[in-house]
């Protein structure tokens, strides 16, 4: 396989190989280009580029081609990255070569762009139809001190009209041929073969290129450079911005709370994720309190979204009444060491084992392992680091660690 274009320079690619015993092998390729990188671009460019990367010359399509190679390919764009991935039970390497070709070559014409605008417009309207999606984006955009995430990943029907072949070409060259791209493989064998294919492919693709290879847990990588943005610290006096979305179909109020946190150390970040998980679990003193106060007219869930150096904690609540007090109860555990000490050492130890078990279970699930490894890589975290940290972390560290909040927001859907 010979790439059709030869570039002067390609940024460093990291290649991680994870051995597995499963029938299906998986390959992921990540580019650090998501919707939060579009400050000077039409909103939706990263997602649009992801669609166009599947196009081939002569009206051909990589989606179709892959199915002939006995592989299922797909892709997604998030706030901070674009990921292409495929899975196959075939042992020959043809699909891997084509995958490298597809993710390294942009084929774009005016006609392709105009046709794709129609499809993506339908996709955008599909999400606009759902008020919960708008609630999510509203909360996110209100949280960011400078709007890292100011808009929907797919952009708007209006913003994508400004996307042209040259916008896509420039973005491709900056981010797809830039630094810190990542290849992850979970496969039974063929480690040498995979690395040889990557090596020879890059030699043909770029005059100057480099890549680093890691196998299994041997992943002590150089630090990833984050796109930093300004934030203000308001941990002693955190304002909650309130936003209201209206739906004539709403029969009960729905609240989405979010807080944005910035971390000084990796340990802080890991413990914050742990505490968030504990607080929404059955081990949570908040849950026990809710039962005692008969406040069960609410449901709680959480999500941690890592975007560059920031973490966002979400808490969903339906029903009116005590909703705000309940949210404040939850985040008080992040603020106050005294409150956190109410979580007993026994509860901490129990949940620590369970939390560790969840991470170990990931090793059984190849489908999740690849995506989770990418998310961890973006944060300079390895699975080994997580294992060793939660094997050894003490109750005292758990209680004493404090967090730096930037902003808080609640977005309510009401009639």
């Amino acid at each position, binding site marked *: 396989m010979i790439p059709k274009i030869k570039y002067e320079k390609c940024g460093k690619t990291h290649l991680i190989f994870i051995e597995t015993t499963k029938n299906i092998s998986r390959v992921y390729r990540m580019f650090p280009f998501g919707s939060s990188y579009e400050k000077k671009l039409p909103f939706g460019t990263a997602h649009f580029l992801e669609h166009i990367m599947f196009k081939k010359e002569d009206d051909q399509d990589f989606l179709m081609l892959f199915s002939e190679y006995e592989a299922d390919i797909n892709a997604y764009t998030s706030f901070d990255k674009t990921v292409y991935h495929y899975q196959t039970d075939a042992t020959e390497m043809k699909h891997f070569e084509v995958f490298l070709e597809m993710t390294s070559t942009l084929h774009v014409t005016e006609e392709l762009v105009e046709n794709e605008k129609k499809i993506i417009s*339908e996709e955008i309207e599909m999400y606009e*139809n759902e008020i919960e999606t708008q609630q999510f984006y509203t909360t996110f955009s209100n949280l960011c001190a400078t709007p890292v995430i100011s808009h929907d990943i797919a952009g708007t029907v209006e913003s994508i009209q400004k996307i042209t072949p040259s916008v896509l070409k420039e973005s491709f060259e900056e981010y797809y041929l830039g630094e810190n791209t990542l290849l992850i493989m979970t496969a039974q064998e063929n480690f040498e073969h995979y690395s040889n294919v990557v090596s020879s492919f890059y030699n043909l693709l770029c005059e100057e290129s480099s890549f680093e290879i890691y196998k299994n847990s041997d992943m002590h990588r150089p630090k990833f450079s984050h796109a930093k943005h300004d934030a203000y610290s308001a941990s002693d006096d955190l304002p909650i911005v309130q936003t209201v979305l209206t739906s004539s179909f709403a*029969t009960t109020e729905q609240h989405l709370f979010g807080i944005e946190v910035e971390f000084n150390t990796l340990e802080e970040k890991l413990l914050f994720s742990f505490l968030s998980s504990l607080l929404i679990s059955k081990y949570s003193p908040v849950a026990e309190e809710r039962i005692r106060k008969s406040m*069960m007219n609410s449901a709680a869930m959480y999500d941690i979204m890592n975007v560059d150096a920031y973490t966002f904690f979400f808490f969903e609540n339906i029903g009116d009444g005590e909703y705000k007090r309940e949210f404040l109860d939850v985040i008080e555990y992040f603020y106050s060491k005294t409150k956190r000490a109410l979580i007993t050492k026994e509860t901490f130890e129990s949940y620590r084992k369970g939390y560790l078990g969840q991470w*170990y279970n990931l090793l059984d*699930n190849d489908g999740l392992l690849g995506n989770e490894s990418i998310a961890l890589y973006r944060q300079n975290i390895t699975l080994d680091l997580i294992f060793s940290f939660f094997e050894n972390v003490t109750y005292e560290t758990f209680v004493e660690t404090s967090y730096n909040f930037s902003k808080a927001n609640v977005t309510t859907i009401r009639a």
Partner: protein
Amino acid sequence: MKPQMYVYQETKENQKSEYYILHIPIRFNQKYQREILRLVQRCLVSYHPLFTSSIERKKIFSSHYHLTLDVRIEKIQTFDFLKITGTLPYPTDKGRRFIMDALMAIYHMKKEDFQTSFFREIFDESRKTMILEYKQQETSVSSRFYENVRNVIYKENPKYSTKQEIIDVLETLSYDTFETLYSEIIFDTNLFLYTNSKEPTMISEIKKTKVDVSDITFFDEKKRKTHIALFAEKENYTFEHASFQDKEAIQGMHALFIPQKKIIEKSVKQRLAFEIFEQCYGTSAKSFLFSEVREHHNLCYSIQGSFLNDANCFYIQTALSFEHYEQLKEIICSHTKQSFEQRVKEILYVAQNERIRSYKRRMDNTKMYLDLQFEFYILYGVHFNMDLLSEIETYTVRDIIEVYENLDFSKITEMKIEQQASQKNKGEFHDSKNKI
């Protein structure tokens, strides 16, 4: 009558956790029983001592905090099951016995258990939470659309309840009514335990619970058919064209139903033929729907077609602009058998391989693999293995065209959201700030 437990064990290499999945077949006789069981499930999972971090559990099972338990009401085609799953990463005999007790907790619940102060305390709060969850679903355009579609399809099913009916019942549900409805749910006495544990001690741990144990008999067709006759539900529904008003819908939603000319008896052969047809017609990237509707005409982002198992029809769903409804229907109805046959000739190999990979993915995951074994046993009385998987490669173009020919495109039924003067759900921004 004493329950009988059938145990299926199969272990693979490099497994780090033990999984135990208990299926209890259930039969609902009247409306609202499914929701009543959901209410019990909710109470158990959230608050029952065996499922939570209660003091009781801590005392007895201090070394097993890391196990997870899950209870769900599931449907495999027309059969309802209570499915209880226990997962233990570092198993010991004590842990296995604990799992067995937990798996059997619902089955052994008696009327007296429901009358405890503990259960009464949580009953009312769980009821309120369920109401709120149902109400929350009403806010979503797609939820409202599919709820309307379901209401039209299943309106003749005496056990089907609309969301509004469920909300009304839950809001006024008395404890006595709850007890009556629950007591009339039929739990089968044949229980099915699927596990990847190969420990011989596991069987002796099960024997310490209140069930009789025998090895599972996969090919006891007589018994399986008796069970199916008892638990199967009605499968034929008549369809009506319907349109729904939704003033908040920015984009349209369209569901199309193509009935089968004759009902084909359910078998593994029929299932695999349907699945390959689905790949060719509506699932694969090379399928008719994806390539014609999305790639060629650019009408939508996503479109799927699959068989609706309990209604004997092929079902197409998509979200697309209101003005594209007619064009979509035109593309589907004007498609000829000859052109579809040509497409099948081109992509049959691809479709077969996609199905094989899909099954291999399920086989790679221990829990999904055990579910697959149970599904194939209960539906067809067969063991799922690689030989069965390789049968997929034997299907011919003729087999797939037979499935196509059995669909009656002249009797297509459509359900859709009507175009209204839609307004976008843009939020009003209130810059009021509340300090903590």
